[in-house]
């Protein structure tokens, strides 16, 4: 770790990226692209969070379930109890985190494939609860007319979140916080411990690392942010249904993380961007879209085992992240 401070080129490139991110919606006014930017931002939040769990060597196939928990929780708090979005939003994240701990406690002690399948079963059960508990969750048709976040009073006027442009800034903020938290965590001593757990769990245990506690921590933080992403999606698209949070969506996040490159924070970001935008490029090809997607997937995994991030690192000779 570089203790002498961050190299100037890094400060410059990060600032440049941030500036671009902040002014983009003012330059690109086409709402379709703004929509894609919001979706990509949400995907980044979920994928970076998944990466945290992957960093401890656990494969979770339940990401979409946590998105759903956050989405439904926030929706119900706003529609049924009348809370403002600004309260419902963090509570939804906390709820997702809570469920994460509840399901993590009995399952995180399982290794590899077993944990993956347990999360898969959990994810499907969550979806079935959303589907079959009709009085609470609206059943198969889901919940319509979810309002946008309430306006915030601001210097005499107010900030509204009805338009895509304004919502983008909200997503951007949450995304940046997620990236920051994950980055700091992964580059801290706890992050080193995660790596130790991922590489040789028994050894890590013996050298005094509280393995279970750390795995739970990763799972908790991951679930919280994923839940927040769910809440954001609900109040952006105004409609959620159980089918939006199925096994296939969870798989999609895994694919994004792996294609991007597991282990770093940049990897999931690249993966999320690449795999949210790639299908859009091929949208006009109709039924060939999925074939192209699959071929791209297979090719990247075969030839870039460390994902796109690995390619980027090789190209820039390991400089920057």
């Amino acid at each position, binding site marked *: 770790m570089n203790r002498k401070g961050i190299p100037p080129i890094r400060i410059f490139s990060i600032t440049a990226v941030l500036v671009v991110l902040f002014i983009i919606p003012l330059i690109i006014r086409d709402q379709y692209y703004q*929509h*894609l930017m919001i979706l990509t931002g949400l995907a980044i939040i979920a994928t970076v969070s998944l990466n945290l769990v992957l960093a401890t060597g656990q494969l979770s196939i339940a990401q979409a379930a946590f998105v759903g928990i956050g989405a439904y929780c926030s929706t119900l708090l706003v529609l049924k109890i009348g809370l403002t979005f600004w309260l419902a939003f963090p509570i939804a994240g906390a709820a997702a985190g809570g469920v994460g701990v509840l399901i993590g406690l009995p399952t995180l002690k399982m290794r590899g494939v077993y944990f993956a399948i347990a999360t898969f079963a959990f994810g499907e059960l969550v979806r079935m609860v959303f589907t079959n508990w009709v009085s609470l969750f609206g059943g*198969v048709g889901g919940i319509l007319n979810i309002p946008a976040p309430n306006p915030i009073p601001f210097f005499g006027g107010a900030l509204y979140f009805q338009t895509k442009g304004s919502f983008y800034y909200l997503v951007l903020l949450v995304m940046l916080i997620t990236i920051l938290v994950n980055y700091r965590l992964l580059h801290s001593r706890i992050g080193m411990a995660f790596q130790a757990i991922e590489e040789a769990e028994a050894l890590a245990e013996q050298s005094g690392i509280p393995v279970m506690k750390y795995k739970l921590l990763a799972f908790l933080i991951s679930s919280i942010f994923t839940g927040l992403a769910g809440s954001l999606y609900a109040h952006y698209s105004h*409609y959620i*249904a159980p*089918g939006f949070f199925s096994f296939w969506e969870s798989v999609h996040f895994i694919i994004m993380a792996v294609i991007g490159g597991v282990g770093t924070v940049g990897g999931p970001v690249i993966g999320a961007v690449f795999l949210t935008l790639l299908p859009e490029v091929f949208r*006009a090809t109709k*039924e060939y879209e999925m074939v192209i997607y699959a071929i791209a997937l297979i090719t990247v995994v075969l030839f870039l085992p460390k994902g796109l991030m690995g390619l980027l690192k090789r190209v820039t000779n390991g400089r920057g992240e």
Partner: protein
Amino acid sequence: MKDRSSSKAKGFVAIVLTSLLIFGLYALAAAETFKIGIIGPLSGPASVWGQQIVRGAEMASEEINAKGGFPVGNEKYTIKLIPYDDKYKGPEGLTAANKLVFDDKVKVILGSISSASILAFQVVTEPNKVLVLCNSFSHQVLDTKKPYTFRILMTSLEKAPLEVGWVAKNKPNIKNAVTWAPNDVSGWDVTKHYLKAFKDNNINVLLSEYYERGTRDFYPILTRIKAKNPDLLYSCGSPPGDVGLMVKQAREMGIKCMIMGHAGSVEDPEKFVGIAGKKNAEDYTYGTDFNFESKEPKAVQFIEKYVKKYSRPCYGYVDPCFYDATMAYAYAAHKAGSLDADKVQEMLKRIPEYEGVMGAFKFSGKEDYGTDQQRLTTCFIAQIKDGKQVILSQVR
């Protein structure tokens, strides 16, 4: 050297300018392009219907473009179709609609069959005054607050009373029934309508079963149903493949009562019989919106062209429905003299004289939805006899 290169340059410029001139003249003379978006499942199991939407639209746009486009005011518009896959999912439909409305700037969207998809993308189409002609089943799709969405296919709300009414009239010895449907939006909504229709016709519903889509083995459910000993087993909203299997397995299980299904449970009678087995499929009765053996000139013409173009028989009712919808839109825009969404949508509600392949293009539905945006089409009762479809009667 200099002379040659400068004359080469002059020659090049001349060619470019001439091409631009020709292109410009051509562009001026050609009709305006009118883009129509299509949102539907183009991959996955539901692509059966998504592809039908595309085919129906293609048939109509080809016919219209062959005449140089459809006239509105002083312009003629040729149709360009832009189909996007929504994979039968809400979020995908939302993205597809965003692209169609903001990037491709369409004024009309055909589809989707997925209720989740259309409920998701109406938040984009309604505020932006984009006309949507859909065939999704959910009740919430049509609403007084959604003046630009029209449903061009009847749902079970309209059809259940017709089908069950036929049962009550022609099979008076049927006193009770069991319904069977997939465990999703369509299945629940459709069953609701049949339950009401059964109640209105004094037929007691003993049991309503729902199964997860993807289930192929209905033996356990059928065991449960057999124990209730119903007079009638009714399929409410399942796709033809599932219904064929259900009929086969029910007969194998020794269930001997009448089995009937909603319009849409059979599309290709031969395939259906192939799945169910000839003996098992005998006497299976079902509603159907489109009579592919109709002698009506419009229908005959449509079917002929369809078979020629796609080398496949025309059994589905979704294709002709969207053909009708596209043609009717062009007709309404022409009559309204404008492409303005408000004017066209008003006109659509007032052209019952337009005869489509599936009957007069009439909208109604004020009682059920608060607004007249639901099309009423033809509807028949058919039966499988000796491995073939036989139309028993026309109920609308």
